[in-house]
Each structure stands twice: as C-alpha cells, then as structure tokens.
C-alpha cells in the first residue's frame, strides 16, 4: 500500500494502552448519527483517565484528570465530526477513531475514506496548517467566517487543537489496495501530557 505522511502522526506502537472504535458509515444518515459523535468522544475522554498515574493531592489529581478528560473529549469530538462530514459515502470504508496513551503523550486519530482528488486538496490544506502560526490562522479564519453566510468554520477545529490544546497534528494518506481512486486519510492529534495544565504522567 502506498502511504504518505505529513506532520506528526504519533507512534502507533500498540505497546501503550489503546482503544479503537469503528463505525459503518453507510447504515444511517449523518444527521441521525451526529449525537453518537458526542457519546463516543465522551467515552474516549472518560476511558483514558483510568490509565493516568495519580500523584499529588486528591484535588490536584482531580483537576488534572478533568483537564485531560476534556482535552481528549474535545479533540476526539472534532476529529470524529470531520471524519463523518468528509467521508466519501460511495466507498465502503469504515470510519474509525483510535486512542493511544504512552508515558508522555496521548494520540487521538480518526480515519475516513476520501477520493484521491479530494485527498490532494486536503494535503494542501494540511501543509497550510503546518506552515502557519495556528493562533494567527484561527483569527484570520474567524474574521473570514464572519464576513460570509456560508458554512464557514473550515479548519477551526484543527486550529483550536493546536492553538488552545498544544496538540501536534499529522496526516497519513493510504491508497486503497484494490481501488486506486480511493484513499483512507487518518488525521492524528498528538497531545503532549506536559501541555495539559497540572498534568505530568
């Protein structure tokens, strides 16, 4: 399989604690399954804190867990929303979300099917995000969104992961082994635990 990566996709060693969920994208319309993004994201946030070492006072540990739970939930929710929105529905590729915890970081990745033409546009967008200052790009995007009545919000979720949560983003594009016009794109957010207030694993 031909692959291309951009940015930091995190390790997928399988040696740390991990969890993978996969969704059949063809079984229900987007709107009716939207609430499940929130349920899945909440689940990942709650799940991961079980494996974090507890240290310091009960109050400090509780605050740190709250920060990490929220960061994972926010990132997982945004990645799942994007995967559900941009998944190419003509392809029978499952949408997946993967969580992995190591001693110093948490990686959340979401994957979906995408046509090769769309993948090229997404690569350009990813390179644009990696080259710029996320905080400045976010301000410019919000000013642009305010001037148009369209759907807007393009990239705001990814930009906030970098600027507000200290995440490093990465993308992996895999060509389908049997159908050259299809790719699977995996978008990863690597969250260093030291970037979470009060958190050091």
């Amino acid at each position, binding site marked *: 399989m031909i692959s291309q990566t951009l940015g930091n996709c995190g390790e997928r060693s399988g040696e740390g604690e991990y969890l993978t969920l996969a969704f059949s994208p063809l079984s229900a319309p987007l709107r009716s399954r939207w609430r499940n993004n929130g349920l899945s994201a909440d689940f990942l946030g709650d799940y991961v804190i079980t494996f974090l070492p507890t240290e310091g006072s009960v109050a400090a540990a509780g605050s740190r867990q*709250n920060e990490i739970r929220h960061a994972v939930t*926010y990132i997982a929710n*945004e990645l799942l929303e994007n995967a559900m*929105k941009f998944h190419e529905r003509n392809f029978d590729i499952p949408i997946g979300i993967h969580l992995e915890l190591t001693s110093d970081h948490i990686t959340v990745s979401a994957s979906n099917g995408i046509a090769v033409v769309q993948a090229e546009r997404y690569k350009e967008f990813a390179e644009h995000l990696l080259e710029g200052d996320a905080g400045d790009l976010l301000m410019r995007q*919000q000013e642009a969104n*305010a001037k148009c009545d369209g759907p*807007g*919000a393009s990239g705001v*979720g990814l930009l906030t992961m970098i600027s*507000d949560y200290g995440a490093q983003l990465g993308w992996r594009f895999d060509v389908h082994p049997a159908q050259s016009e299809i790719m699977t794109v995996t978008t990863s957010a690597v969250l260093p635990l030291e970037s979470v207030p009060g958190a050091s694993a």
Partner: protein
Amino acid sequence: MKHINGESFDIRLEEDNSTVCFKGALRLSGMEDYAPILDLLKETLIHPDASIVLDLRELDFLNSSGITMFSRFVIEARDRAGIDLRFLASEAVPWHARSLKNLQRLMPSLSICLT
C-alpha cells in the same frame, strides 16, 4: 423570556434582553444549526442600554462550530461602536480558560470574568 433548548443544552435570554445564560453541552453540526442561537444573541445588540452579559459558567462543552458562532457574535458586537460585552466563565470548565482568550483577541474590549 426567550428560550432555546435541545437534548443536551438550554439557552435563555433574560427579560432585560441583555443577559443570555447557557447550560449543558453544545455540539450542533454546523452554522445552519447554530443560526437560531446566533439570532437570539444578536437580539441583545438591538438596544444595548446596559452591559451585555453572556453567562457561560454552566456551558460544559462547546464544539468548534459553536466557537465560530461566538466569534461571529463578538465580531458583530465589536463592529458596532460602544458595546460593553462581558462573558462570565468558570475555572472548573477547562475550555473556558483555553478558548475564550481567542474571543478577546477578536474584541480587545471584551471582559471575561473567570471565577
């Protein structure tokens, strides 16, 4: 009192038309779904005799489309002269300290009270 609610959230515009209280988790799927809430927020800008207060202390979760909705509102408030806009936020809700500062960057006179 105007009121919008959903499975996971509750939003109220108080009688004085200058205070909006948010509760719960907002994860709507895009700007089209957020339009009624943005319209409700804009009602506070019609006759801003007093400070406009957005009470987010019990808004536990907001997705990026919701962040964009608040950004649109803040930019609209900024572009009208003399609007006094205040956000009430909570230290116990992690996204408040992380993301509300971006709204202040869009509107430097915006006041955020984090308690």
